[in-house]
Every structure is written in C-alpha cells, then in structure tokens.
C-alpha cells in the first residue's frame, strides 16, 4: 500500500473504498491525494468529513424508532471538515452536491432537521444524475431522500421557518395531504434508488473479485444497509399500512419484491414476501384481487374507508430504476392464493436456508429465531394450501420443515395431520407416535391414531394400544373419554370379526359390548355411541335390545345413514321385511346413491316383491355408478388435484361401504381389494360395474335364468377374473345347469382365493353331500361354522350331513341351532355396516 498511485488510479481506489464502505482506508488515501495537488485539499476535507461521519454512525448506530440525540463532540470535527469543503467553493459541482448532502445528513444526526431541509432545498435532489453515477453516489442519493423524508416527518407541516429556507413553495399553503404525499414520495424514491445501489454494488463487487488476483480476503462479508437505507426501503410501506391504505402498501411490496434480489436484501425480501402473503390471505379474496401487473382498482374494499383523505398517488419516475426480474414466460400470479403460495414458497426456501442446525446452548437464541420465522411461514402455507385442499403438497412442504422440528410439537403435529389429510395413513401413525411422546396428555392424538388404525390401515393391535392410552388417561381425557371407549370397542368388534376361533370371537364380542356400553353411558347424547352399542348388540343377536338403542341413536341424529340401515336390518331379522324395505326407501330418499342401502334394497325387494323389481334396482345401481364416475373423474390434472383426490378418497370409503360382499370381513380380509383400489381410475370404474354385474347375476340366478346369469357373470369375470365372488357365482350357475362337477371345481377355486368365504363353503359342503362324500362335507361345513357361527343355513346343512351319516343327536342340535339363528337372522349380515371412528 505504500506505493504511490497515479492520479486516476488513486481516484478509482477512493471510489472503490467509498462504494464498499471501507472508511478506514480513506485517511491514508487522502494523504496521498493532497500530496499530489493543492486543489485536492477541498476534496480531502469532503472525504475526511464523510469517513468520520460514517465511522461515528458505525459506532453509534441510530436505532429504528428512536430519534437522533443532538450534537456530539465527535461530530464537531465532521462539521469542521464539511464546512471547510463547502466554504471555499473550489469543489467540482458533483463534489459540492455531495458535500451538501453530507452536511444535511450531519444536521439530521445532530437533530437539526430544519437546517437539513435547508441543505436539501439547495441541492435539488431530483436533478442529481443517476445514470453513470458512481456506485457510492447512488447510495448517497438514496440516503439523502430517506433523510429528507425523516426530516419532513419531524418538522410540522405549517412551520413558517421552512419558507425562509428557500424550500420551494411556501409552506403555509401546504395541506397535510400534500405533506404526506411528499414524505412518501421521498421514501419511495429512496427505496428505489437504494435497490438500484445494492444491485450495482453487488455487480461491482463480483466484477472486482473476478478481476483481481490473488483472491481477496473476506470481501464477501455481509454488507450492512445502515439506518438511512433501511428506512428508505421500508418506511413508505409502513406509512401506507399505518394509514390503512392497503392497496398502496401491496403495490409497494410488489415493487420491492420484483426488483432482482441482492445478498443484502434477502432478509428484507423474506420479511416482505411473508407479509404480503399475510395480506393476501387475511385481507383479500378472489373477487378483490388484482394481479401484480395490473393497475389496482380505483376503489378497493381493502382501504380504510375512514381515511379516504389519505389516498396517495404515485407521481414520479426516476431516470434509472432498479433491475426487475425479467425474461420470457415469467410466471405472474393471477389469483390471490397463487400469489400467496409463490411468496410463501420463496420465504420457505429462504427460511430453510437459515435453519440453525447446531444444538449447542450458545445458539439457542438463533435457533429459536430461525424456528419462529420458519414456523410462521409453514403456518401460512398450511392455511393457503389447506383451503384449496392441497394436502398432498402440504405434507411434502411440512416434511421439509422437519429440520426445525426436533422436540417441536407443533411442527410434528401439523405434519401428522397433513399426512392424514393426504391419505398417507401409515406414515401419519408413525408421526403421531412422536407427537404422543412430546405431548402425552392430549387425548386427541392417540384417538387420531386409532382412527387410522381401524380405518384404512386395519392395524388392530396398534389401534388397541392407542385406545388404551386414552382410557388410561381417565378423567383427564374429559370429553374424549367416551370416544376412547368407543375406539377400543371398535377395535374389539373388528377383532371379533377377524377371529377364526369361536371362543376368541365371543371373548372379543363381550369386551366390545362392555366398551360400547361404557361409551354410551359416558356420552348419552352422542348418536354414534348409541349406534355402535346397537350394532354390537345386533351382531350378538340381541335384537330387541339393539332396536332400542338404534331408535335412541336415530332420535339424536335423525338422518344418520348407518343407524337407518341398521334399523332396517334389525327389522329384517325380525322378519318384518316390508317395514325394513320402507325404512330403506326412506333412507334412500336422503342418500339416493348409497350402495350399501341399494344392495340391501335389492335383497329385500327380491324377498318382498319378487326378482323383477330387484332387477330394476340393480340397473339403477349401474346407472348411478356410471354417472358418479363421469362426474368425479374429469381432471387428471395430476398431483394435487383435489377433485381426483376426493374421488379416490370416496373409493376408499366405498371399499368399506358400498361393496358388501367384497368388504364383508367375514369373507376374508380386504387385501385383494385394497390392492385394486390403488389401481387407476378406469380400472376401478369397470371393476365396480363388474361388481354390479355380479350382483345382477345373483338376482338372475334367483329367477333361474342361467343363460342371462352366465352372461352377466362372464362380463364380471372378464373384468375381474380373480374375484372369489365371481368364481362363486360361476359355481352357482353351473349348479343351476346341473353340472355338479363343474360347480365343485369353481367353488374350490373360489376357496383357494378366499379360504374363508362362508357361502362358498356352504355350497361346496352341499355338493359334497350330494356326491355322498359325507365326511369331507362335514369337515367343510364345520370349518364354515368356525368362521361364522351365526350362519344358520350352514348349521342346517351341517345337520343334514350329520343326519345322513346317522348321527341323529348331533344333527338335531344343529337343526335347533339353525332354527334359533334363523329367527334372528337379518337379510344381510350386520357387519355389512362399516365400523369406523
């Protein structure tokens, strides 16, 4: 550094130091400068004044919201330098302007606001050249505008002292609005030029780095904006929002965000992007939105109507503005959620970058800050995506939040809920486990887990564990206690259905009944508690008691579809088929497209009114399927399509609800079909209509129309060859045609797919009986009774086989059991009604 630099080289070096804020190098450079030419002395004074002022501000930064504190000893020196520079009048005009601006800034720091305004009046900021100006001068101008704005805010509008200071129009004529307008214009100009300055500074910096070798030291240190530029960038929109002028505030936010970012503006952009998203989500709606590239509406409901006088009109243009993002096919939001999402995604990526990963205690505060700023963004993302039903994408976003989430309950819980909403049940349960660990006394969390376990997952053991957690909370679980008993009741009830041994079946049923009774007594106004109690009683064939509770459930919730269905089945168990049909028809008037109800209706109609009418209902079912799918699968707009998601969710539900035979847990678990649900849409559509075909053929079989039945079954079989139901149906057709051997083959195939399909077992047993293979027949039928001890026709067949074998005593017992069961047998198994939390 001791080598002497030639004049222009020296000037460049000075310019660079000023631009990069390396004030400590200035005195040395000034010494070299003065040594060259006497006339440089004035410039030297200017530079020394500047660097001392800057050094002072660095040591004593002005805080936002606080006022400058008046004259300070150190500043006397600065004033001396600057006065010297100004007084002699030897400076080039550019430098003279700079000296005036610095003087004004000094006045502001010394709280001499009027004097500062006087200096600005002399300089005329608007005429300072932006194009071609050195980088440091851009910063100076930006600071000057901001300082002027600050001074104008301090000096009351009507102050007479201003007119003395040659500041343009006489102040007496100014209204408050004009003054406000002027202040905001100052800040907006300051902000625009500040953005320009930062872009230029960054450009110069990276150019400098590339030109210079060897590599410089830590030149990439964070550049600090300082009080004046910060104020210039932000004060304008702060005033807009204080005045209730949201339209202008939003406009200003957008202007700042559209400027190409620099390293220094990153934090500001992150804050502003989040704030703008908040406004879009909290204060705007679809109808009041205008796109960033459109003019705002003249009258907007956003603006505070009581402050109509404060409308600000932007009426300036700068000779040079900050660079904006540009290029072809720039995405520009057209809708408020779109814009909010874009902004939030940008904020999110920035927040993620600042995630503090270390866990040492010294960084605790940093970690809290980074967590807070991120979690605000994630909450807003949740609100924006949630109201549009985009849970899939939301769960992916929240997954990214997990780097903040160590021991943070809120983030874990939100992730779990989003996974649940997105249908990712298995993952949701695992995340819920962590939530339970973090907040062990909240009963909602284990209940949510049970809901998933007994619903889509069918993890009954896990479900039992979660439900027990709720029950163990006892009184602490408050209103959720009843729900806890209901949950465990459902787990036991489903386990009973799954159990293959009669003893364990009965044990689970007993436990389930106890739990439901407890739930019902804890929450007598909950229709679900009464309903599940009724259902469990029905399953254990306590028909009159069940009727009592289902009536109670219906009183609490008149149009609950499951209660109505159960009522109809109970009536059918009492052989009041016509009453049952009336109930079903009433229920169907409220739920015209419910397949479970329609299916029961078909069965009842076949019983009461003959197969012709049942067939009509079948056709109706088919039509509904078609229209249902034509309505709900239009968009394959891909990932995130909420309609499609809904359709899939519907199908999941349908799996449990509308396909009685298939979902009937007594006929083996649903794996086969659950696999199918993940098949794509059209496959399922056809599969379902195939199901209806199968149902239709059942009716045809009832009408002894083997040809039509065969055609129907064939259709169903083409679509879904591996269905045990279809094979069973084929067996029946073969039987109808008299092909016993063929029927036997079909039944055996059906059983190889689903070894616990009771109906098939019964038919097979009967055929074996016909073929006089008694002991094998007995074995099959006994297995069937093991699987479902309430199937009265199986008991009956078993009796017949035993009788044929000459075992009269056992046969009688079987017949008696059959008789007894038949007296309480519903038209379809009670378990057709889905059990879910």
């Amino acid at each position, binding site marked *: 550094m001791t080598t002497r630099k030639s004049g222009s080289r020296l000037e460049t070096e000075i310019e660079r130091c000023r631009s990069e804020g390396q004030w400590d190098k200035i005195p040395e450079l000034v010494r070299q400068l003065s040594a060259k030419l006497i006339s440089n002395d004035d410039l030297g004074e200017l530079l020394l004044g500047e660097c001392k002022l800057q050094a002072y501000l660095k040591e004593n930064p002005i805080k936002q919201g606080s006022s400058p504190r008046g004259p300070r000893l150190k500043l006397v020196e600065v004033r001396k330098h600057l006065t010297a520079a100004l007084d002699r009048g030897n400076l080039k005009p550019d430098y003279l302007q700079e000296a005036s601006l610095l003087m004004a800034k000094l006045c502001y720091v010394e709280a001499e606001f009027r004097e500062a305004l006087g200096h600005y009046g002399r300089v005329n900021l608007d005429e300072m050249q932006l194009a071609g100006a050195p980088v440091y001068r851009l910063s100076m101008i930006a600071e000057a505008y901001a300082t002027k704005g600050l001074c104008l805010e301090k000096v009351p509008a009507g102050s007479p002292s201003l007119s003395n200071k040659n500041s343009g129009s006489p102040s007496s004529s100014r209204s408050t609005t004009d003054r406000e307008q002027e202040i905001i214009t100052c800040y907006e100009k300051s902000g625009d030029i500040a953005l320009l300055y930062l872009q230029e500074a960054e450009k110069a910096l990276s150019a400098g780095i*590339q030109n210079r070798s060897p590599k410089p030291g830590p030149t990439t240190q*964070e550049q600090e904006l300082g009080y004046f530029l*910060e*104020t210039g960038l*932000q004060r304008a929109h702060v005033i807009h929002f204080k005045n209730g002028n949201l339209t202008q505030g939003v406009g200003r936010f957008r202007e700042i965000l559209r400027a*190409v970012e620099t*390293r*220094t*503006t990153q*934090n500001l952009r992150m*804050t502003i*992007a989040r704030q703008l998203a*908040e406004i879009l989500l*909290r204060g705007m709606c679809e*109808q009041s939105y205008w796109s960033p*590239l459109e003019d705002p509406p003249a009258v907007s409901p956003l603006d*505070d109507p009581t402050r109509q006088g404060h409308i600000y009109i932007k009426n300036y243009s700068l000779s040079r503005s900050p660079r904006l*993002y540009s290029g072809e*096919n720039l*995405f*520009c939001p057209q809708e408020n959620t*779109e814009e909010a999402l874009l902004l939030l995604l940008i904020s999110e*990526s920035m927040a993620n*970058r600042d995630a*503090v*990963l270390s866990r040492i205690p010294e960084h605790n505060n*940093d970690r809290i800050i980074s967590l807070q700023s991120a979690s*605000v963004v994630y*909450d807003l993302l949740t*609100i924006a995506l*949630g*109201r549009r039903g985009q849970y899939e994408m939301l769960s992916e976003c929240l997954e990214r939040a*997990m780097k903040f989430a160590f021991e943070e309950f*809120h983030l874990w819980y939100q992730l779990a*809920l*989003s996974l*649940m909403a997105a249908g990712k049940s*298995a993952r949701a349960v*695992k995340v819920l486990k962590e939530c339970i660990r973090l907040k062990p006394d909240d009963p*909602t969390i284990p209940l*949510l887990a049970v*809901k998933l376990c007994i619903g889509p*997952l069918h993890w009954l053991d896990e479900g039992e564990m979660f439900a027990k957690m709720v029950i163990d909370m006892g009184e602490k679980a408050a*209103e*959720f206690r009843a729900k806890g008993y209901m949950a465990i009741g459902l787990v036991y009830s489903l386990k009973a259905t799954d159990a293959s041994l009669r003893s364990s079946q009965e044990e689970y049923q007993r436990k389930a009944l106890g739990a439901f009774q407890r739930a019902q007594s804890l929450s007598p106004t909950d229709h679900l508690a009464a309903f599940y109690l009724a259902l469990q009683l029905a399953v254990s064939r306590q028909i009159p008691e069940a009727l009592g509770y289902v009536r109670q459930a219906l009183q609490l919730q008149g149009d609950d579809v499951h209660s109505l269905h159960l009522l109809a089945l109970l009536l059918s168990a009492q052989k009041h088929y016509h009453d049952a049909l009336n109930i079903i028809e009433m229920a169907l008037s409220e739920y*015209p497209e419910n397949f479970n109800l329609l299916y029961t209706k078909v069965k009842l109609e076949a019983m009461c009114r003959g197969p012709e009418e049942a067939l009509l209902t079948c056709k109706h079912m088919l039509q509904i399927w078609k229209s249902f799918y034509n309505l709900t699968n*239009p*968009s*394959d*707009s*891909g*990932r995130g*399509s909420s309609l499609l998601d809904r359709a899939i969710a519907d199908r999941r539900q349908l799996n449990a609800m509308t396909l009685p035979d298939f979902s009937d847990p007594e006929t083996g678990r649903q794996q*086969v079909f659950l*696999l199918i649900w*993940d098949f*794509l849409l059209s496959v399922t559509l056809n599969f379902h*209509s195939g199901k209806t075909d199968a149902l239709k053929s059942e009716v045809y079989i009832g009408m002894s129309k083997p040809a039509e039945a065969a055609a129907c079954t064939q259709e169903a079989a083409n679509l879904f060859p*591996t269905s045990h139901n279809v094979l069973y149906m084929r067996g029946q057709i073969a039987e109808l045609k008299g092909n016993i051997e063929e029927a036997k083959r079909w039944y055996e*195939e059906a059983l190889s797919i689903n070894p616990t399909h009771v109906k098939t077992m019964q038919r097979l047993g009967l055929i074996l009986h016909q073929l006089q293979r008694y002991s094998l027949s007995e074995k099959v039928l006994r297995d069937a009774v093991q699987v479902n001890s309430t199937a009265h026709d199986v008991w009956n067949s078993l009796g017949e086989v035993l009788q044929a074998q000459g075992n009269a005593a056992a046969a009688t017992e079987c017949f008696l059991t059959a008789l007894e069961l038949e007296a309480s047998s519903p038209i379809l198994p009670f378990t057709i009604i889905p059990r879910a939390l």
Partner: protein
Amino acid sequence: MFGSERSVVEEWLSEFKSLPETHIPSYAGSLHLKKSLVPALYRVIQDPNNELLEPVCHQLFELYRSSEDRLRRFTLQFLPELVWVYLRITASRDRQSNGCIEALLLGIYNLEIVDKDGNSRLLSFTIPSLSKPSIYHEPSSLGSMVLTEGALCQHDQIRVLYSGLHPQRETFTAQNRFEVLCFLMLCYNAAVVYMPLSSYQSVCRMSSRLCVCGFPRQQQKLWREPCNRVLLDPEFMVQMLTAVYHAIYNGEWEMGREALEDIVYRAQLELYSQPLLLGNAMKSSLPESAPDDPRGRKVLQVEVTPTVSRISISAITTASIRRHRWKREDTDGMSGGEDSFNINDPDEGFSSGASNSSQPSGTKAGARLSRDREKVREREREADRKPELLTDHQPAESRPPQRQQSPPSSINLEAIHLSPIKKHLSFPVGPALVRTGSTSSSKSFDCMTFNLNGGEDEQEEAARGEDKERGISVGGSHRHSTISLQEEHLVRPEEAQELLPAGAPLTKQSRSPSFNMQIISQV
C-alpha cells in the same frame, strides 16, 4: 319483531318490485344507506314462523339473480345466517319445513355452479413452482432445490381444479347437503372482503354454534338454546375456518377467535384432520395482541425491520454448511469461479446454470386445463356409451409424444397418466437435467431409473405374491406405477421403513452431495 322493523322490510319488498330496470344501478348504490334494513332482515331470517320469511327469501333471490354485483353481495351477506337456520332446523327433532330458505340456498347454488354461458364453472388455480422463474424470483438464487424425485415432480407448475362440475340440485338430501353448503361457503369466501361487519359477526356466530350445540361446551356459552348436535363435514369446516380467519383480522377479533377455538374443539372431537390442521395453523400464527381498537382491522402490522440477519454468523445453518463446503472446495483448488457461487449461494441440486436454461414455458398449464376440459366433455360423451373396457379410455388419455420420451419403457404410460400424481414419471426427467451435461444427466437418470426399477421390483413382487396366492394370472396388475405402490403402503401393515421412504428429503440429503457436486462442476 317490532312494527317499525316490519314496515322497513315491507317497504323494501314493495320498493324493489316497482323498480324499473334502469334504476337498478342507482338502487344498488343506495341500498347500504338503509341502516335499519339489514338488522330487520336478520330478524326475519331468524324466525321460522315469520310470515315475511317467504317474500324476503324470494326477494333476496331476485337480488342475487340481478347482474349487479352490489345486489348479489347484499344477498350474500345473509348466507351464514341462512346456513345456520337451515342446519339448525334440519337437525331438530321436529323438522319444520324451512322450504323457502332451502329454496333460496339451492337457488344461489344453481346460479353459481354455471358461468354466463351456462357451462359448468370450473375453479382452478396454478400451484407455482420455484424452479420456474417468476416476477418475484429466479430459480438460481433460491438454492434450496434438492435434486430429488419430489423436486423433479414439482418442476412444472400444476394447474389444479379445486371446484367444479357440480350438478344442478333440485332438493337437499342428507347426501348432497354439504356438497351444496361447501360450495356456497366457497362463493361467500370469494367475496368475503365485501361483506359488512354484521355478516362477519353472523359467520362467527354460525361457526361457534354449529360446532358446540349439543356438546358439553355449549354449557359455557351465553347461548344455551337446547339444540341437537349438527353433523358437520370436514370440508365445510375448512370453509368456515376460512371465513372466520378473515373475520378475525377485519374487525371481529374477539368473536372470530372464539369461533376459531370452537371449530378446533369440534374438529378434535370429530377427529377431522383437515380442519384441525388449518385451525392449529391459524391459532399458532395469531398475533399476540388484539388490535388497538376492538373493531379495528389487523390485517398486518408492519414496522421497519432490520435487514441484517438476526442469526449470528457463527451458528451452523443449512446455508453455512453450504458455504463451508464451497470454501473447502476452493482450497482444494477444484474449480474457479466459486466466489460468484458464493454470492448466489447455490445449493444442492439445481445449480444456477442448470435451472436457468431449463424453462420450457409457463403457458403449458393453461393448455392443460383446456385439455382437461376437453377430457371432461369426452367423458360426458362416453357417458352415453357403455362403460367399456380400459382400452377404450386410452386414446383420450394419451399425451403429446414429447412428454413420453424418457421414462423406462416398462412403465405403462397410460396408467401413469391416470394416476393423480402422474408427473412423478411422465414429466420430470425433463430438459433441465439433460442440459446440465452428459455425465450429470446420465447420473441422475441412473438415479431415476433406480427408483423406477425399485418400484417395479416391488410391484412385480407383489404381483408374484398374488400369483402364488391364487394360482391365477393377474390381468391388469402391471399397470401399477410407483406412486400407486407408495399409496399401497397405506394398507400394508408391514411397511417398517415407511417413515423414511425413498422419496423423503432426509435420505436424499445424504445422497445428494456427491452428485450435486458433479452437476455443479459440469457448470
């Protein structure tokens, strides 16, 4: 109801009837000046036995049918109250007929589901993607794009239909009730800014009462009128939350927060994940203090914020790790120009050069929507035909050929297109990677195909499993996509590794450094 209120309503009824067409705009402008009219109308709506209810409902519908936005919004302000009255009566044991309210609600619904030309109104929006330049950002400057399957599938902006294709409804049934009400609330929320304070109060009141009536919490409320529990739909609760959220920040701070609490309470009791998710987010992002004026708005508080990062330089952050990595590479002397990277802070995955050059077009989304619409029509046409085999659908689904280039041929593309998450495979292996340079692109392809193959294997295994079980060939099961397999995890209890599947960012980060280095050094 007082005589004066009655006369206000009667005057309003007769005035509009005698209004000539040309006076409607000025009438619309002056309607809000009738200060006593709105409270009087609320009284009428709240009383099911009021004989003015029917003419009032009729007139509200007439206003809604007019082409004047202000008149439509006048009717819309009563929507929350109408919904509340309707649902309360529906849930009550003695189901009085609230026919005229039902008719009004259905009338508004039937008007709103179609556009001006009578076509079904489709509401859609674009999910922005950070890998596309926008007016607010440049992909290169946001370094957080990890090169993952997830990032790739978000590469394109996606146009999403969030409401549409609602059928006309003549009557309410238990089955369609919430479909209609959800849509009505969606309309209300789309205009919520224009609603007066009284309507915000009404929406908060409606939400609170619907959520607590018949539950123990009702006992803590001032409003104790005995009432049955009202069944609620999760999606409807989300719409309620959206309206309440707005009310909170626009003058109904107290009532709004109470309603928010009540909705969350109910969502917990019902174990509804969606409203619980949103409600939690809304609660946790509430400002700590009420607005100064109890009726004041609090859309936003802004102060001048310091631009300096509040996080100390010494803390280890994602960004600092990155910086560190670049610095280390620098000392190793691997490549020049890393300082400019330092400024841009490039990240795992897409480096600046890679993503800059990879922006096909933003208009694709719109095009796709219109294609969707075509498809809708296609389906409608198909409705007339018989539901045929799968193959019949395929021509309609097939894509422009350029999008099918890259995925391995063993994956059935049609099947993938039908999948809700199809873009996993059909799009992302796109130009971005190809242009980063041959090695890196082949590398990433390896990764992709690895994933695909992984999925394939698993799927084949599943298929084999089926075969074994049944001894019967499984016709269409090869139409699985990896996605559907992921979905399938839901139903398979034995998914032990579920918590961290191949697509999870966590595992990815452990994998990415090696090959993002490669890509960047290509650049």
